[in-house]
């Protein structure tokens, strides 16, 4: 991987010119290189072959029907290009879409509210994680997923459910530790507790853990 030597290459599909220009600027500011920015999802495959991006940033509603083009394109691309990271940005998030995206493949996937883009750090963090094969789920989706499985989650302590929520968003142990202002050791301990209480197998790698947690939540 020569990612350390060159900036991550981004393919952007967003139909609103206003937001597209804003996103290109923010992405550049965050240190990424936008190789192509288009207004719909029809030519994504060609563009990927042409530009070989690391991450595709997609809007959900795009022409021609302005429904869930972005989600459909993401599901398609996950199967065609398992190595491509995909980040969906949307005005609203739906747990239904999150579930479909997670089920569609194993590569890096992100699904965030567009509002999150206003925080440069959050956006950079999400894109890097997705490029790396990790996940970045919006807190709104996570809380919706967690509210559904209230029964088994009731057994968790408050701290454990906080850790679980952040973990489900795709955050690393270090990121969780700094978000909750606790040590990484404490995070590890909580993660072990969570996996024990939910009856999940702790697979070691952080990405795989996240997937296990998400699989549990969307079950």
């Amino acid at each position: 991987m020569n990612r350390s030597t060159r900036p991550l290459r981004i393919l952007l599909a967003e139909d609103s010119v206003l937001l597209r220009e804003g996103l290109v600027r923010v992405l550049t500011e965050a240190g990424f290189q936008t190789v192509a920015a288009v207004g719909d999802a029809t030519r994504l495959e060609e563009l990927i072959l042409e530009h070989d991006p690391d991450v595709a940033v997609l809007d959900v509603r795009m022409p021609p029907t302005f429904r869930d083009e972005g989600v459909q394109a993401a599901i398609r691309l996950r199967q065609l290009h398992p190595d491509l990271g995909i980040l969906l940005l949307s005005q609203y998030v739906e747990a239904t879409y999150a579930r479909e995206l997670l089920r569609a493949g194993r590569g890096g996937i992100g699904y965030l509210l567009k509002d999150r883009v206003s925080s440069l750090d959050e956006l950079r963090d999400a894109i890097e994680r997705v490029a790396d094969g990790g996940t970045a789920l919006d807190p709104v989706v996570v809380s919706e997923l967690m509210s559904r499985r209230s029964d088994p989650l009731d057994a968790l302590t408050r701290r454990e459910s906080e850790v679980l929520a952040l973990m489900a968003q795709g955050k690393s142990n270090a990121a969780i530790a700094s978000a909750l202002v606790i040590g990484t050791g404490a995070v590890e301990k909580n993660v072990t507790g969570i996996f024990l209480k939910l009856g999940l197998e702790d697979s070691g790698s952080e990405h795989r853990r996240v997937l296990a947690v998400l699989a549990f939540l969307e079950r």
Partner: protein
Amino acid sequence: MSQSIPAPSFHPSSGLPIGSSASPGSEPSATAASRPSGPLYLRLWRGVPRELGYLAPTWIIALVVFNVLTVAISAGAGLVFLFVGIIIVSLTLILARYLGTFELMRLRASGMPPIAEPRWTPPFEGKTFIRAITEPLASAHYWLSYVHGAIVNFFLAIITGVVTFTWIVTGLSLLFTPLWSLIKPNDGTTSTFYGPDGQIGNDWNIASLMSYGIWDRQDPTLVGLLITGLTLLGAGMIALIPFVTHGMTYAHWGAARLLLARFPSEDMSTEVAALAASQRAAVVAEDHSLRRLERDIHDGPQQRLMRLQMDLASAERRMADNPTEAVALMGSARTLAQETLDELRALTQGFAPPLLQDRGLAAAIEALALRSSVPVDSRVDLAGRQLPSEIERAAYFIVAELLSNAVKHADATAITLRVHVLEEGEGLPATLALEIEDDGRGGAQLVSGHGLVGLTERAAGMRGTLDIVSPVGGPTRVTAAIPLPALGLAAAPTGVGRA
């Protein structure tokens, strides 16, 4: 052919197929092609008792009705130059109306399809004397009832009565006369059957009359053939009884349909009234929701955006002399912007849920059910139909509101949700049916201003209905039905994803 006849028993000397067609249920299958098939034929037979129950008293009833109405109208007509004659005619017409209603009830009981009555009003209630008297005189329906009772049905009853009675009696006697000669105690003569010795005259009247010449020739084969033929004719007539009773009842039904039924234009005006009511309900509901939307936008995002503009303006002013304060102001401006976005999102979710727009009703309802904090056992089956978006929206909000009611007000711990399409039938259009049941505390009521009334309005706006059964102590069961526009199965929703 004989295989299909159960246990045929032939008379030893004449070869009479006694058991052949005596039981009509065992009509030879060879005729199946030319006559209605077995099941329909059996169904017709099953209708025979009810139709006979209608036809048997019909001629007496029709006769009485004819006499009463004719005498009454004659009395009234004779006295018409005195005011009392008019009253008598009017009362006669009112009587004819109720007799017509009675006839329709009898027809319904005979198993015929229901006939919609005119939209009668009570004859006297809430009317002035003059109005009560003149109204029947000016109403076509009253006069048609009179024509039906006093003229048409009477003559029809004579015909149908004679035909039915003659048919059945002739059929039975033709069929059973030879049987009778078998069973009849022997009066001592050696010959047990017909022949030149005179028994025929006692046992077989029609045959003896018709075969007088043949008898003279003393040809037993011809006599036998004739009797066999007449017996078969009797059996055939018995076999055709269902068609006769059905046809005769149908004739009465047709006359009633013509004279006692509501005019199509009346249905149309009812339809128009229902449409107007439904449209008003829709307009009222829309007005409410638009007002609420306006208030929500005014109280929320609009205020925040104005404050945002003010904050940004002061940040702009302070940029030069007090950058620290300017940055702090811009931070709060960002928070305001975020809050505005959240509010707008909640608002759009409130009238145009994204998933509903993107994926349609089934997906949106499944998502609602998944999101509910109380477990929802949901089953959505739209039979591959693409519903009009306004119906999807109405259905979605009815379900959403009911689910949240069950969680918030009823303290339910389990909710059952069923959404399915009832195909059209019995003159009813295809309908989207919603059923939601919770095990909560019940006692939900339609109180003005309460959410449930809004839902009823929403359903009414779609020409639908919403029913609530919610005894105190639960369970609460709400059913809603929204008629779907008449069109065949739309192309199955192709998923929105297209390559």
